[in-house]
C-alpha cells in the first residue's frame, strides 16, 4: 500500500530538512510544474486526479483553481491562502503534516500559487500550533535560500512571497471568508456570498483558500500523474486520506490509508478497537460538526459520498469514538458549548440560539431539565439550520444535536425523568 504523504516522515516526529526532502524526491514536482506545464495543464491534472478539499467541504480542488480569473484580460493581483487553522474538535491531522514534513506542504502551496498566478501566499496558522509555525519558518527560509520561493523561481518569470500569519484564535476563521476578514485585521466575520473568494477575496482580489492536507497531495499528483493518484483510492475520490481516531480506543492516532477505507476497519484494525471494558456505542465521523453514526452503521467505506448517504458527513475524517460508559448528553452539551463560545456573533439566530441551547443542555445534564426542553432543542435543529443563519457554523452545530436527539432520545428523557445524569 502506497503512503505518499507520510512514507518519508521520521518516527521520532522530527521534521524533514530540505536536504532530506530533496533526497526523497522533493521539489521535483515544482520544477516540473514551473518548467514543463502550463497553468491550465496543472489545473486539469489536479481536476482529473479528483482531489477533493480535505478541510471538510470536499470541493474539487482543480475546479476551484480553474475558476480563478487569470491571464492578461484580468490584470488584478491574486492571493493564495493556506488554511492551517485546524480547530475542528477531534481533528489533528494538519498538525502532523506540518510538523513532520513542512516542505511537502510548502511545495504544494507554491505549485498552487503558480497555478492561479498568485504573487503572494499566506499561511494562516492557529496560535496554538507553535511547533508547526517554528518549523514552517525554518522551512520557508530554507526554500528561499534554494530559490523555491522569492524572485524568478527556478529561472522562470514566476515570483512568490510566502507570509506566515499566526492567528489569534477563534474557530470561525475556518470559514473561508471569515478567515479573510481576519487576515485583513478585523473581526473574523463571514461575508455574504456571492461573490465567492475566487472572484473577490482578500482585499477584494481573487483568492484561493486550501486546507493543508489538500495542498500536500498536490506535489504527488504533479509528479506521478492523475491516473496514479486515482489508483491510490478505493472509491471515486482520488488519493489517500489521513484518517484519525480519538476517544477510548486502544491506540488513538492518525493513519494514511486509501480514500474509501472501511470505517470499522480504521477503528478496529488501526486504532486497535476499544479499550478493555468499553464498547463502541457511536462515532462522530468527521469532526464536531458532523452527525453521529451508531455502532451498526459504521461498516461503510469512509469517503465523502458514502458517509453523506449514511446520514452524516465525511468532514475531516478524524473520528471521535463514543463509548458506552460516557454520557451522550454530556458529549452534546460539550459540543454545543464549543459552538456557542465560537459563534462570531454576527447573526442573531447563532449568537442567541446557541447559548440558549448550551444552557438547556447544561440543565439537562445536571438534572435540572424539564420535559419541554426537549422540544426546544428539537425546534432549534430547524431554526438554526441552513438558510436561517448567515454562515454554516450554527447548522454545523445542529448536526450532532439533531442526530443525538434521534439516537439518544432515551438518554435525554432519562436525565429529565430521574433529575440526574445516570453516568455521574
Amino acid at each position, binding site marked *: 500500500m502506497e503512503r505518499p504523504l507520510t512514507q518519508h516522515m521520521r518516527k521520532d516526529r522530527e521534521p524533514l530538512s530540505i536536504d532530506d526532502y530533496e533526497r526523497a524526491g522533493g521539489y521535483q514536482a515544482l520544477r516540473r510544474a514551473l518548467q514543463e506545464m502550463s497553468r491550465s495543464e496543472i489545473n486539469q491534472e489536479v481536476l482529473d486526479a479528483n482531489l477533493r478539499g480535505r478541510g471538510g467541504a470536499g470541493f474539487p480542488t482543480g475546479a476551484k483553481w480553474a475558476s480563478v480569473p487569470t491571464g492578461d484580460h484580468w490584470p488584478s493581483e491574486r492571493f493564495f491562502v493556506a488554511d492551517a487553522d485546524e480547530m475542528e474538535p477531534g481533528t489533528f491531522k494538519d498538525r502532523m503534516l506540518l510538523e513532520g514534513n513542512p516542505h511537502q506542504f510548502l511545495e504544494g502551496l507554491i505549485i498552487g500559487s503558480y497555478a492561479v498566478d498568485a504573487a503572494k501566499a499566506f499561511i494562516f496558522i492557529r496560535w496554538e500550533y507553535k511547533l508547526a509555525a517554528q518549523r514552517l519558518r525554518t522551512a520557508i527560509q530554507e526554500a528561499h535560500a534554494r530559490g523555491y520561493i522569492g524572485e524568478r523561481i527556478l529561472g522562470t518569470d514566476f515570483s512568490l512571497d510566502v507570509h506566515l500569519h499566526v492567528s*489569534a*484564535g477563534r474557530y470561525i476563521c475556518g470559514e473561508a471568508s471569515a478567515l479573510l476578514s*481576519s487576515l485583513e485585521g*478585523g473581526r473574523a466575520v463571514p461575508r455574504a456570498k456571492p461573490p465567492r473568494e475566487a472572484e473577490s477575496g482578500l482585499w477584494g482580489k481573487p483568492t484561493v483558500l486550501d486546507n493543508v492536507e489538500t495542498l500536500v497531495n498536490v506535489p504527488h499528483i504533479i509528479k506521478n500523474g492523475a491516473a496514479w493518484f486515482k489508483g491510490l483510492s478505493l472509491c471515486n475520490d482520488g488519493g489517500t486520506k489521513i484518517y484519525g481516531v480519538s476517544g477510548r480506543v486502544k491506540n488513538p492516532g492518525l493513519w494514511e490509508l486509501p480514500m474509501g477505507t472501511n470505517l470499522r476497519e480504521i477503528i478496529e484494525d488501526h486504532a486497535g478497537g476499544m479499550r478493555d471494558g468499553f464498547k463502541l456505542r457511536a462515532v462522530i465521523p468527521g469532526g*464536531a460538526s458532523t452527525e453521529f453514526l451508531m455502532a451498526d452503521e459504521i461498516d461503510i467505506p469512509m469517503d465523502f459520498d458514502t458517509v453523506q448517504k449514511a446520514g452524516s458527513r465525511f468532514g475531516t475524517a478524524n473520528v471521535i469514538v*463514543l463509548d458506552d460508559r460516557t454520557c451522550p448528553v454530556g*458529549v452534546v452539551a*460539550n459540543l454545543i458549548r464549543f459552538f456557542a463560545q465560537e459563534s*462570531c456573533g454576527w447573526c442573531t439566530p447563532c449568537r442567541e440560539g446557541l447559548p440558549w441551547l448550551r444552557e438547556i443542555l447544561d440543565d439537562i445534564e445536571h438534572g435540572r431539565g424539564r420535559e419541554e426542553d426537549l422540544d426546544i432543542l428539537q425546534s432549534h435543529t430547524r431554526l438554526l439550520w441552513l438558510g436561517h443563519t448567515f454562515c454554516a457554523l450554527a447548522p454545523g452545530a445542529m448536526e450532532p444535536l439533531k442526530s443525538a436527539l434521534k439516537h439518544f432520545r432515551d438518554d435525554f428523557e432519562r436525565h429529565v425523568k430521574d433529575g440526574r445524569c445516570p453516568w455521574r
Partner: protein
Amino acid sequence: MLWPMWTDNGNTISMQRTGTLTKEVEQEIRAELENATQPRGACLVALKVIQRHHGWVSDDHLCAAADLLGLTPEEMESSATFYNHIHRKATGRHIILVCESVTCWFLGHEEIRARLQEKLGIEMGGTTADQRFTMLPVQCLGACDRAPAIMIDDDLHCDLTPDKIDNILAGYL
C-alpha cells in the same frame, strides 16, 4: 492626538486620548506596516507585538497603535476583543491553556481542570496572586490522540493525569 466626539446636540467636542509605545514596539509595528497590503491588515500583528513585549494590551498602547495604523481606537478595540489570545487585562507570567474540547472531556478534562484550580487557587480566567499563572480555557488543541492536553506558554503537555500536574507546574517559575 485629538479625537472628535459628537454630542447629543450635534456639536463636536474633542477628547484627548493618547498613549505612547516604546521605541522597540513602534519600530516592530512600522516594519510590519511595510509588509502589509493595507495598514488595517497590520492590526492584529500590532496587537501581538505589543503583547509580546508587555504581556497584554493596555488602553494606552491600544490607542497609540491605532494612531500609528491610522485607525480609530474603536476599530482597534473591535479586533482586540474578538480574539481569544489578545489580552486586554494584565496576565500572569505564564499562560495555561486548558483544552476543553470533546475528546479531552471524554478522557479526564474535568479532573485536570479541578486539580489545576485546586493547586493554583484560581478559577478559569483567573490569575494567581503572585502573578505567576493565568489559566484560560481553549478549544481543541489538536492533540486528541494524546488527550487530555494543556498548553503552558509554548509547550504542549499531553496524556495528562491529575498527579502529573504538580511536576509540570514546577517547571514554570
